[in-house]
Each structure stands twice: as C-alpha cells, then as structure tokens.
C-alpha cells in the first residue's frame, strides 16, 4: 500500500508538488498521466528519496516519510530511511543515467553484486535474464554510448528489474520505444504486476496507459486531479482539466486532425506551464 498525503515540494519559489494526494494498492499497476512539467518526475524522485519534499506524508509499505518542514531527520535516521526505502523501491529514470564505464551487462550486474553481495556468476545470470526479457541479449557487451536510444532505455529497465524491488517506478519507460517494444514492455509490466509487484508508471502514451493500468492518476499543476480505473478516467473524466487533456487524445476522431491543421482557438486552453504556449497558428 502506497499512501501519498498532501505532499508539497518547492524549488525556491516554484511550487512543483502542490498537496499531491493519492493511494496505490499493493500489486497494482498505476499510470500517472499529465502535461509536461506538472511534477511527475519530481514525484517519483521524492518517492525514491532522491529528493526530499517540504511538507506532507508518504507511506510505502511500512516505511513512512514526512516532509522536512514537519520533521528534520538526523543523518543516521536519514541513512536508515533511505536504505529501507530503496531496498523496496526501484526507479527507471527519464534520462536513463546508465553507467557509461560499464557494458549493458555490467550495468545490470553492478547493484546485485554490491548491494545484495551476489557472486559474479549469479549476478551475471540474473542480468542476462532481464536483458533477454527486454530483447538486448546480444547487445550485452555494448557500452551505453554504443546503444540506440531505445536500447539504452531498455538497459535502464533491465538494470532496475535486476534488483527485483517490490515497488518499481517507471519514468516514461516507452518514450524511446517503438510499438512492438512498447507491447513487450507492456507485457513485462503485466507479468511483474501479476507477480504481485507494485508498479507506478509515468507515461505520455495513452494507449499504453489505457491498455495496461489497473489505476490511472491524472496529474496537473503539481497535484493529483483525478484518479480511477482507465475506463473511468478515459471513459468519462469528471474534472475539467482531465476532459481538456483527454479531448486532445482521440486520434480516430478526425476533427482533431482538422483542429491541428487550423490550430483553432481552444488550443489556447492547453496551457500547463502557466506560460502561454504559443502556436504557429497565430502567425499564419
């Protein structure tokens, strides 16, 4: 069970997470949707304690974290907390952060060996197994710089999975993947999910989201606007923001295509960064 309650995170004056609140049941696959810059990555980073949030509470399993303004932790406490948190929670970064000095295989073996103290052979096996699953069996000896975007992303996935955490946070696991790979990733997530793992996936790929999630959370302006089953959220969204966001996602509805062509006014509403998002339409 993951409970996030009224989390607030600021960068200087810029409030990135603004009383975000939601729950996720164990063993569920939850997709977080939302416009760019709404705080999705930040949220995941907070859940993995890569960043500390200012206020609010967060409970992952039996690990509880509170905002720094509510309670300052001693270095020792902090250390213990992160250790316990991270042995449960794995994350896949939006920008991969692969280890450039290690091969694909090395990237996946490193943590099992150092953290879990596995033997080289054992770690190698596991690493291979997951590289297999993401279809990179034969690139195992390439260094990150020798891999394509998609391949890098898949190495990142394999690296996280190799630690076999209970909770896995994916920051756009498919951004650089083609439909086929998206499917196999989908399949993988499903399988993990059916293995009782809790999955939190940030994604822009609606089809993907709709297809695989048990729960969908729509994020905007730093807080969870709406959450429910895919059917509910995609089917008949309650909140205005959600509706606006969804409307832009019905490719089969050709009117959209026209919209785009003519760049009609409603696009002005599509503002997420509080900055006016210009459209070349205006210039035409």
């Amino acid at each position: 069970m993951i409970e996030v309650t009224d989390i607030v995170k600021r960068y200087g004056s810029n409030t990135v997470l603004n009383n975000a609140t939601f729950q996720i049941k164990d063993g569920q696959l939850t997709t977080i949707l939302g416009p760019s810059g709404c705080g999705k990555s930040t949220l995941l980073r907070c859940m993995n304690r890569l960043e500390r949030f200012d206020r609010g509470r967060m409970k992952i399993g039996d690990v509880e974290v509170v905002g720094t303004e509510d309670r300052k932790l001693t270095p020792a406490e902090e250390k213990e907390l992160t250790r316990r948190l991270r042995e449960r929670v794995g994350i896949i970064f939006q920008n991969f952060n692969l280890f450039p000095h290690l091969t694909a295989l090395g990237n996946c073996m490193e943590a099992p060996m150092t953290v879990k103290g596995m033997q080289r052979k054992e770690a190698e096996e596991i690493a291979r197994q997951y590289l297999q699953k993401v279809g990179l069996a034969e690139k195992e000896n390439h260094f990150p710089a020798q891999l394509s975007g998609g391949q890098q992303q898949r190495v990142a996935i394999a690296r996280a999975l190799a630690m076999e955490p209970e909770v896995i946070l994916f920051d756009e696991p498919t951004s650089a993947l083609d439909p086929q790979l998206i499917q196999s990733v989908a399949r993988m997530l499903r399988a993990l999910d059916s293995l009782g793992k809790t999955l939190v996936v940030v994604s822009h790929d609606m089809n993907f989201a709709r297809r695989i999630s048990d729960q969908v959370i729509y994020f905007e302006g730093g807080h969870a606007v709406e959450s429910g089953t895919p059917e509910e959220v995609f089917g008949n969204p309650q909140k205005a923001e959600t509706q606006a966001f969804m409307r832009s996602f019905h490719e089969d509805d050709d009117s959209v295509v026209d919209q785009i062509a003519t760049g009609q006014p409603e696009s002005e509403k599509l503002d997420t960064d509080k900055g006016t998002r210009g459209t070349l339409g205006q210039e035409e």
Partner: protein
Amino acid sequence: MSQHLRRAAFSLLLLLLSFVPSSAQTALERVRSSGVLRIGTDATYPPFENKEDGEFKGFDIDLGNAIAKEMGVRAVFVNSNFQGIFPALQNGSFDVVISALTITPERSKTLLFTDPYYDAGQVVAIRNDRKDIAGVDDLRGKRAGVQLNTTGQFELEKRGGVEVSKFDTMDLAMLALQNGQIDAVVGDAPTVRYMIRQSFRSLKTIGPQFTDEKYGIVLTPGSEDLRDEINKALKSLRASNYNQLYDKWFGEEAEKAAEQQAARTQPKAFDLSLLRHAWPFFLKGVWLTARLALLSLFLGLPIGLLLALARVQSLRLLSAPAAIYVEVMRGTPLLVQIIFIHYGIPQAFGLSSPDPFVSGVIALTLNSAAYISEIIRAGILSIDAGQMEAGRSLGMSHWQAMRRIILPQTFRRVVPPLTNEGIALLKDSSLVSVLALEELTRVGNQLVGVYAAPLTIWPMVALLYLLLTFPLTRVAEYLERRWKPVTRS
C-alpha cells in the same frame, strides 16, 4: 675537486682504517717480489688521469710508469672512483694512489705522502679582452668569482679588498665570468686551465700561481719503505726527464695540441665518454630519486583519495579537517616540512632524528597527498550527479556508489593531472638533499664540480630526469588510452 667527494671519501676512510690487512711482507718486498707496482687512480681528472677509449692517459700515468721503471718494476693501473679509492688502498687492492691528490695536514694524519710531485697553485682567470688585470694583486676592489669552500676563496678572503662572489660550482663561476658578470675567477691552476681549454675558450689565465697546493703520491701508513723508494725515484726523475714529462702535458705545445683538439670538438658536443666515469654516481642518484618519488606517490595516492572523499561528503566533522590539512600542507614550503619532520618533531618529542630517507619519504608523501586530493576531488565533482543518483537509487550506499560508480569514472579523468603530480614529485624529491641525501640533482652538482663541462653534465642530469619521467608518462598514456570512455563515434 668536489668538497662532497673529498668528505665522503674521508669518512669512508676513517671507517675502514680499522681493518688494515696484516701482511707478512712489507709493501716494498711485496712490490719487488711481484715485480709490479699497483697504482690506484680515479681516471676522471684530465690532464692528470683519464681513460681515452680504454687507455689510461695523463701526467700521473706517465709519472707512475716512469717511477716504476726507475724501480725496475712494471706499473699496473687500477681505476677506482674517488669515493672508493682510499678504502681500496687500505685493503691492499693497490700499493699507491696517484690521482692528483693535494697534500693536506688533514690527510697526512691518516695517510702516507711522498714528496710532492706537482705544484698546483691558484691562478687567476680573466676574459681574453681584459687588459687591466695582470695578476691577483690587481683584483683589489674588483669582483672575483670562486668556488665555495675552495682554497681560492680562502686565499682571496685572507688577502681582502676583493669582492668575492662564491659559486656553488667552478663552472658557474666561469660562466659568470664569460658573461661579464664578474671580473675574474680564482681557482686550482690545472682545473682552471683545463676548463678554459675545454669549454671557455674566451677566457685565459694570467700571472703565476700565487699559492702552492702540492700533489703527492699516497700510501698506507706502514709502507714507509716503499714511500722512501718512490721518493728516491722521484728525485732521480726530477734530475732526468721530469721536465719533458711536464711539458708534454702542461707545456706550450701541450696547450696548443689540446686547444686544437678541443677546437675540433667546439662547441663541446654531448660528450658521452664522461658517462663512462660518471655513471656509477648518476646511477646512485637516479635510484635514490626514483625510490623517493615512487614511494611517496604510491603512499600519497591513498591518503589523497581519503582526503578527497572526506571533502566531497556532507559531514563537516570530516570535511573541515581535510580542508585545513590541504590548505596547510599546500600552503607551507616542502623544505620547511622536511626540516620540521626530520629535526623539529623529533626534537619536540626528545627523540633522535629518523633516517633521512624515511623523513624524506614521509615529508614528500604528506605533501603530495594534499595536491593529489585536490586533483581527485575535482575529478569526482566533474561526474554527472545523475550517476550518484542512479547508484543510490539501486540501493547502494554513498560509499558503494563512490567506489563502484563514481571513482572508476573519476580516475580515467584525472590521469593527466595525477601524472603532473608524479613528475612534480620526482623534482621535489631533490629538496631532501637538505638531509644530505645524494639524489640526482645533488649528484649532478657534485659531478659538475669534478668535470669541467657543465653544459655536458646538466643536460645529462636533465636527460636522466627525462628518462625517469618517461615510464611515468608512458604508463599514463597507456591508462588514458586504455580507459578512454567509449563514445558514440
């Protein structure tokens, strides 16, 4: 001849005086029965003695042969470097030493001298174009260069009225004279003459030798009979062909010959033949320098690494002291650190000073660690923060991530500056000569004193340092290539 050498030899001598081999025969009997006079010489001091392509040459050599002839025996020459020559004489490796040795009361205490056979006084050297100086008396109120602690200096100071510039080595004095920074140079006649011929053609000696240092043949105490025999021989030589012998080596045509010979080889090329005599000294120096530098580098690396790690982590308790250590060790001069570690600290704790080599290594290590730590720190900071995050997010502790993720990427980046530090260490190690350790630079200084050719010895020293750094830079290059981060193209 170099102070250092003389002192070194002398102390060795004192050390070895104890076990003189007890021999049934007297020295003279031994010579007569064997029919050979074994003569020890340090063939590195032309025109008195040197080896030209394996052949002993020089005044002392001819003299030795002449004496042997007089005695009706055969002369056999044994080459021995100066530091070893007295001990060798002591333990009977040869019967006498003929090696341009000045007769001093100091030596007379412990050695047996024959009558003097050569008068090596002090002479004044000036530039060929200089007209107003005709002898030592004209040096009043002028600037005269001498080598530190040589008869030349003491003489001038006795006389007074001359502004004496003391140079570490004779050659520097000659250079200064040549460049017109001083008016004259005063030194041992043969040395000065030899130097002028070899490397300073624009200078000349003037006036008579105004002191007399006399060279004598050396024997061990107890071989008085042989000494007397040799004195006889010398006397009869003086009566007969001593003069032509002298002229052969020091007379006009000798000078001319030498000059022509020198002229042919002007400007003096890099004279490898010197190496033949100098290499044992160089070897010692190189070996010491290498040991000092490598030891300190390898001890300094881990310490530097720890300091760097202490500084990049958040705990003030660790980072602050590290920062201060670096500030202080980089801030204060190595020389001072060496003196304090060798003299100051032992004195403070009433201990006796450690072995100079140990003190040297400790000082160099602690000093270099500070520099190394900054290099490594810079390397660590240059690694993208995402790397640490990735490591931590996989459950690694700060230190695990450091060890497995950050540092491996760091090291490949800091190879060049670390090489800088290693090379700097090679040079800085020369400072430990303040503890009387004879590392490469010190050896160079000494040899320049022995040989007349600074522009040959110094390049040699430089070359040797170059050879010392070479492996270092090669290894660095290899590591750089080996660790070259794989890039897209």
